[in-house]
């Protein structure tokens, strides 16, 4: 770090025109210099990463002997075989592409279904009472337990995989959307009552905007879950388009440790990417008025 550590204090103070009670712009008290912020955010995960890598190496080379090294290949071999060998890596990428398509289809269906159900539930307590127990039941089903049923009903193709995604990702959307729709406070509802707003106006101008932060929280959870759903579905149905799940199974069966690890890393990278994308959308959509905690990525 050669850059001088010049803190930009005072820059946050702006004169406020014509008012006695001053607005407080939400700026930090003391701005840190850029390199320092960078060091503080980048360094810790970097250090942690090297610790993990060295642990990995020591397990591969010290704990495991030559014959059993296939159980955990050292990192550079994973990179060599899994990522740098184009034939192997493109196989993983194609699998990833197929699984992403399934996950996104499932997610879109979940969002539509979840919004409709949550909106209905928010409009009539009866609907909420009728539907909610079944939503919880659906959520509580271990997905593995109904995989056979799903394959009876929907076959073993893409459709079944999408069904698994929907079952896994629907609940967080419904719960969060419903919670959000009910989150507008009493006073705001009174305003709309006072000015005789219709049900639709109330929903459009009060309940939906108030629900946005909760909806996004639900979306981020569900997006991650739908990726898991797509992979789990693919893993079990094992026919049709080759997704990342089938690849994982194939590599495991063939004891292709390097490719297996590369595929695992890529699947988790997909989950992280989806999570980040939704976080970004959230920030663009509501970041201006909603205080999103900076702990989230």
């Amino acid at each position: 770090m050669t850059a001088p550590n010049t803190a930009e204090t005072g820059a946050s103070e702006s004169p406020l025109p014509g008012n006695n009670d001053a607005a407080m712009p939400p700026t930090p008290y003391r701005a840190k210099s850029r390199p320092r912020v960078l060091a503080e955010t980048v360094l810790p995960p970097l250090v942690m990463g090297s610790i993990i890598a060295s642990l990995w190496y020591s397990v591969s080379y010290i704990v495991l002997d030559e014959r059993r090294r296939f159980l955990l290949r050292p990192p550079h071999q994973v990179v060599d075989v899994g990522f740098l060998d184009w034939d192997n890596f493109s196989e993983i990428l194609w699998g990833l592409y197929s699984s992403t398509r399934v996950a996104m289809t499932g997610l879109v269906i979940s969002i539509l279904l979840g919004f409709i159900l949550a909106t209905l539930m928010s409009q009539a307590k009866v609907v909420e009472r009728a539907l909610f127990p079944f939503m919880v039941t659906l959520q509580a089903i271990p997905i593995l337990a109904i995989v056979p049923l799903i394959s009876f009903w929907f076959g073993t193709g893409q459709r079944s995989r999408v069904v698994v995604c929907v079952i896994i990702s629907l609940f967080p959307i419904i719960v969060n959307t419903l919670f959000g729709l009910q989150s507008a406070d009493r006073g705001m509802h009174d305003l709309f009552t006072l000015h005789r707003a219709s049900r639709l106006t109330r929903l459009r101008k009060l309940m939906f905007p108030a629900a946005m932060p909760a909806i996004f929280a639900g979306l981020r959870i569900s997006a991650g879950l739908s990726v898991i759903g797509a992979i789990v579905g693919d893993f079990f149905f094992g026919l049709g388009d080759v997704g990342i799940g089938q690849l994982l199974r194939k590599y495991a069966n063939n004891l292709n440790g390097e490719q297996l690890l590369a595929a695992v890393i890529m699947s988790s990278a997909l989950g992280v990417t989806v999570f980040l994308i939704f976080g970004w959308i959230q920030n663009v959509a509501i970041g201006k008025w909603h205080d999103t905690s900076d702990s989230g990525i």
Partner: protein
Amino acid sequence: MTASETTTKALSFEDIGMIFPDGTEALQDVSFSVDRGEFVTVVGPSGCGKSTLLKIASGLLQNTSGHVSVDRERIGYVFQDATLLHWRTILSNVELFAELHGIAKNERRRLAQEAIEMVGLDGFEHHYPKSLSGGMKMRASLARTLTLQPPVFLFDEPFGAVDEITREHLNEETQQLFQREGFAGLFITHSISEAVFMSTRVLVMSARPGRIVAEFEVPFEYPRRPELRFEPEFAELSGEVSAQLRGAHS
């Protein structure tokens, strides 16, 4: 005030009683009226049913006995909290009521801009509520109600949560708005100095069930200057209200 007179008043309560479903009696035989150009303040111990009175006036609550007469079409009602929609900018928050009343975009923008200037929030039109102080949020809430040009203006302890200095400023400004707009004002508070400073009339309400136990005419000329608060007549009247209020507490 006799019953025959009240028909011409902007807002009148006749023998209002309110018993909540759980059996709590909040109001008992409350009768008074407010005319245009009058600013009536009700002071009373907390929990005496003052806010309930405003909810009844606005139609948010249905009284269990008695009769209210008021035109609710463009009734102004400022709550204890600013209740700004946090996803809207100040400008668009101030436009809300006009929007709900179906006023065309250009017209409501003009009304909002005018109201924003009236409360001294110009320059903050495009800020979001989260970046405003409590006092400024309250100004925005006032502006939002002003866009309706309400003939009847209800205030439910709107300045209870702001600091003393801001409260005094807001009192002075509210008083100016009252003078300019000439609405029938009904203000709820438990601050005696706030009540005496702004009002043409101060009513004292008893502890639950709320009844009107005393009435004071406030003789001071408008516009009232901030220094009024330190004059002997002001102190004397405040003292009398305070004595009644203390009696109402027991």
